[in-house]
């Protein structure tokens, strides 16, 4: 094996002295070719690249990428789910607020109607009471008027008798003797009419 002193790098002994320097070995005695352009190593590199990269590709495609993709998808779903839940909770809270406000409005309306009803019924009661009192007063007034009228008629009736008596008395004093009762009554009646 041909190893030029210049190639005796620090690494060479560590890797083992039995190694073959293919690049140098090909051109023993001549100038060593530039390793990346040494076509004698191509077949080996292509084969091992195909094996390793092929296995790497299959491993990533079958195992690693589905796994990472799954992790990312689960996370995305979880975030979306959490957001949905948050939105749901928010809508629930909004509904609760709306229900509360509606109840409040209903209660207010109810309070108003109750107040109105109380006011109305009180007013109606007062009206009934007032009408009753008014009717009673009316009745009493009518009775009084009737009483007055009866008193007036009886009084008026008595006026005729008193006039007759007075006229008879006057006639008696004037002419002495008894006056004709019927004539006096007729005379008084004539005067009064």
């Amino acid at each position, binding site marked *: 094996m041909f190893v030029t002193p210049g190639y005796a790098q620090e690494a060479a002994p560590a890797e083992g002295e039995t190694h073959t320097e*293919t690049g140098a070995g090909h051109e023993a005695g001549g100038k060593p070719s530039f390793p990346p352009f040494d076509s004698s190593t191509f077949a080996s590199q292509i084969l091992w*690249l195909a094996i390793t*990269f092929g296995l790497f590709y299959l491993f990533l495609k079958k195992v690693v990428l589905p796994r990472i993709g799954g992790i990312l998808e689960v996370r995305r779903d979880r975030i979306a789910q959490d957001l949905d839940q948050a939105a749901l909770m928010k809508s629930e809270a909004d509904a609760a607020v709306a229900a509360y406000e509606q109840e409040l409005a209903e209660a207010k309306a109810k309070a108003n109607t109750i107040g109105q009803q109380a006011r109305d019924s009180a007013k109606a009661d007062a009206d009934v009471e007032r009408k009753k009192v008014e009717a009673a007063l009316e009745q009493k007034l009518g009775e009084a008027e009737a009483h007055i009228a009866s008193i007036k008629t009886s009084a008026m009736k008595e006026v005729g008798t008193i006039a007759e008596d007075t006229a008879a008395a006057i006639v008696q004093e004037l002419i002495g003797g008894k006056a004709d009762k019927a004539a006096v009554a007729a005379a008084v009646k004539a005067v009064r009419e």
Partner: protein
Amino acid sequence: MANDPIHQFHITKWIPIEIGGLDFSFTNSSAFMVATVAAAGLFLFLTTSSRGLIPGRLQSISEMSYEFVASMLRDAAGSQGMKFFPMVFSLFMFVLVANLLGLFPYFFTITSHIIVTFMLALLVIGTVVVYGIMKHGFSFFKLFVPQGVPGILVPLVVLIEVISFLSRPISLSVRLFANMLAGHITLKVFAGFVASLSTLGAVGVAGSILPLAMTVAITALEFLVAFLQAYVFAVLTCMYLNDALHPSH
């Protein structure tokens, strides 16, 4: 002094295998391919094994790389492109981990060999061509005829488009290969200066501080390049796949 900057790219046979006159030996390159695949695969597998609803730090890394590549592919090729997601993600992770592993001292960088990057690029272009023709039939070749070009210019434009299409696997592979190769050579050269200068006595030791600082700085730069090249490779893959999905410009 043992500071030949090319030495790190040498391929050494660990288990010689020869089939039909071709050398299929298990080499240090093969070993680092296995290491790359094992490291990337195990990392992704183990960090996601708890399937945490709330990810830990390591699980976050796996998820971030998944979503990073997924959004890259979706932006470039639309949701139809997601059927290529396993391929793009494998390419990205393979190149990224290979580049990062290569930054460890004494480690072999598999992406610093043109044949490896060229094979990966051929995989991409091959997928584009095969899928494009399978899905669109002959109309896949409309890719080479942009709409709204005056009739007299069509042959010239088609020629340019064909050349540009054929140069894609070359540019894709050479970009990655050259970046990794140049970066590692630069690192090695500056690190070699440290070793060479420090043998020259007190003045040399003092003088070696500058290349040491440069080595540290370039190491940081190489970490950036390692990620950036994996990203560029994946982005270009996405864009080429977009051509296969939507050939009419």
